[in-house]
């Protein structure tokens, strides 16, 4: 089946395109890109709605799908449905499932399930260590053969410098990045919020910024020692960013991602009407405004490679408790693109071109997965956004099984119009005028 996306504004940095182009999809591949492509026979012509922007599919390189083991929080079906609604054509899922994804059997189970019910592509991330216990390496070659694209003990840091060295050396053999949740455990202690004046006045135990930067610096040193690629997950502090910036200048193979909540919110929100809101509890915690400002600068200059959500679903009951007892994490798949458009693009921090790099080009490059461009021959994974459309976040309508978002009720400028995976439309936002032409959404399988 051929589909011609007609008359849209295409932003494709890898092809150097930022202008009106038609995109011809043939089955699950891109067939042609050009101005005024002629529709031949058997071509479905789709008029891209006025004001919409066609982008290579967005990839969220950091999500928690919770399946297997915690299907009350999220499943592969609901998590990928949320991803589709959020404009993501693929997600990379972290291994802290139950059981941990530290074996080919678990990886295959996730991929099999994703093949049956997944609305978007799923790239499993395997564990660095067996059981994520931080002791000995998981069977990384096996994990890779089964389909893992990276390794991480996310939720926890890679426990020791020695294990991190071994992981970098071993995973480096396959060109797989090691993704680290940078947190020095003894400094972080039992912390539940960013260590600073706000947490001090609220009587909340603090996680100092240095707990992140000290491990980021360790990882950078080990990446230099081994020559392997390290990726810093959910970077949240100006201190760690300073380390990454200096390392990149030296040519170190380090990359990093930030979450929307870390570039939108600061720990100031923990006071006032939303004080002790457990939907503001995540790890790393919301940092100070100076950290937020540094992250905005890093997004602008390119020190930061990717935007990832750290989508972490938890049931309402689990969050309806005392702040220090609540689990860390918030959902983010369905708000990331709107927050990025509203705060970064309309906020004058980055261009649409840079946004596509952060959400598509770089995640694909870091994970070595196909995509990041709509060059002919590449996967027909397309995200169509409506930068000017207003949305009001309503978590009660979320596709996720969980509702733990601090952005409920927020009015944002910028929406996802449609998501196309392997040539099939998997999501259409009917609130965007003209978007009906992009649908109807069909099951991917």
């Amino acid at each position, binding site marked *: 089946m051929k589909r011609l996306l007609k008359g849209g504004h295409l932003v494709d940095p890898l092809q150097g395109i930022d202008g009106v182009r038609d995109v011809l999809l043939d089955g699950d591949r891109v067939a042609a890109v050009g101005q005024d492509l002629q529709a031949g026979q058997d071509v479905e012509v789709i008029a891209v709605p006025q004001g919409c922007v066609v982008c290579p599919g967005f990839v969220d390189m950091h999500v928690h799908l919770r399946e297997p083991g915690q299907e009350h929080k999220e499943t592969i079906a609901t998590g990928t449905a949320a991803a589709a609604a959020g404009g993501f054509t693929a997600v990379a899922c972290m291994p802290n499932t139950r059981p941990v994804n530290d074996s080919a059997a678990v990886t295959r189970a996730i991929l099999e399930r994703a093949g049956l019910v997944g609305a978007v592509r799923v790239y499993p991330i395997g564990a660095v260590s067996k059981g994520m216990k931080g002791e000995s390496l998981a069977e990384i070659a096996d994990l890779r053969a089964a389909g893992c694209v990276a390794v991480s003990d996310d939720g926890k840091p890679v426990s020791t410098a020695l294990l991190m060295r071994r992981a970098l050396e071993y995973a480096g053999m396959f060109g797989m990045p090691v993704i680290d949740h940078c947190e020095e455990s003894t400094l972080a202690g039992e912390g539940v919020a960013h*260590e600073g004046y706000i947490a001090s006045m609220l*009587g909340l*135990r603090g996680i*100092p910024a240095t707990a992140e930067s000290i491990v980021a610096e360790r990882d950078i040193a080990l990446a230099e020692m081994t020559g392997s690629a390290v990726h810093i997950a959910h970077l949240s502090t100006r201190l760690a960013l300073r380390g990454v910036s200096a390392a990149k200048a030296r040519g170190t193979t380090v990359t990093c991602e930030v979450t929307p909540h870390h570039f939108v919110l600061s720990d100031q929100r923990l006071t006032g009407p939303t004080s002790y809101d457990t939907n503001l509890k995540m790890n790393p915690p919301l940092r100070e405004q100076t950290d937020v400002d540094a992250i905005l600068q890093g997004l602008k200059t390119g020190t930061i490679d990717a935007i990832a959500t750290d989508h972490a679903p938890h049931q309402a009951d689990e969050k309806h408790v005392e*702040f220090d007892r609540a689990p860390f994490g918030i959902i983010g798949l369905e708000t990331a693109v709107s927050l990025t458009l509203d705060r970064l693009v309309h906020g004058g921090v980055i261009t649409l071109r840079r946004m596509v790099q952060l959400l598509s080009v770089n995640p694909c490059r870091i994970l070595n997965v196909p995509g990041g461009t709509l060059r002919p021959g590449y996967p027909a994974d397309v995200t169509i956004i409506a930068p000017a459309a207003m949305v009001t976040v309503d978590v009660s309508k979320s596709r996720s099984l969980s509702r733990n978002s601090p952005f409920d009720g927020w009015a944002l400028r910028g929406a996802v119009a449609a998501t196309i995976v392997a040539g099939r439309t998997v999501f259409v936002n009917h609130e965007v005028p003209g978007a009906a032409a992009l649908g109807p959404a069909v099951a991917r399988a």
Partner: protein
Amino acid sequence: MNADTTRPTPAAPASPSDGSPIPANRLRGKDLVGIAELSVEEITLILDTALAMKEISSRPIKKVPALRGKTVVNLFFEASTRTRTSFEIAEKRLSADTLNIAASTSSVVKGETLADTVHNIEAMSPDLLVVRHSSSGSCHFLSRICRAGVINAGDGMHEHPTQALLDAFTIRERKGRLAGLKVAICGDLLHSRVLRSNLLLLTKMGADVWLCGPPTLIPAGFAQSGVHVTSSVDEAVEGADAVMMLRIQLERMLGGFFPSLREYFNVFGMTQDRVRRAKPDVLIMHPGPMNRGVEISSDVADGPYSVILDQVANGVAVRMAILYLLSGGAEHEAVA
């Protein structure tokens, strides 16, 4: 139960012996979760009301009917003797029906959530909940999900507002004011809810607050917040009008915050020598329970400047004032 018949004074709290009327005013919210939420006017109202309440405790029959028919539940998820007793006496002197629930006897040990525990209690229509809990912010959480008023009797390391109010009452009683006084607060600043409430209250009321403790027990960000922070007891105490000592818990030593209790006392303990640097009429205060020979020497604790037992006595009056104001007492009288 007929204590009030000896002196039928529903308006008694409003008519203290000196004849000055309680300001016809009330607290804005249904709860007292922290000093942070109180205005200067509300703090003043509570302190003025407590003055009237204190007189009641000096009567031969220490009871007025202000809270007759009101149910107050003292919900203590953390051990407490002083604060719970103080609240209970305050409630009884106002004729409230009171009920004490301690965590060890509650459903919490059976795995029930805090929200469920409190919803169950609320189903029995209490008017006020006095809550102590080990989690910071738990009273904010409860105030949002409860119809009844919530009084914070200490939440984790966050606030202990009634303690700060009774401390302020005690200072004001002796010094006639709070504004312009130098108040030193010494000890475990990091883990102290008493510190946070006092810092907020004294700052709002215009006092000059000095914090003193080992650097390992100074909360992050305090030094940059504009308040004086020092690790020199001498500097903190110099010319002070009041010195508040904070309790040092043995666990803190085990947690590695300082090497030994002996060394702590040598460096930070409040001794007669150090007190001499303060004003001649300095007030020595402690929220209790005290560790004699750790944060304070016995001769200071029992010495002429000590107002530690006054604090305990004033605690009842201040808590009566808060219970009275939050139960809508002033409002009822306004229409009576």
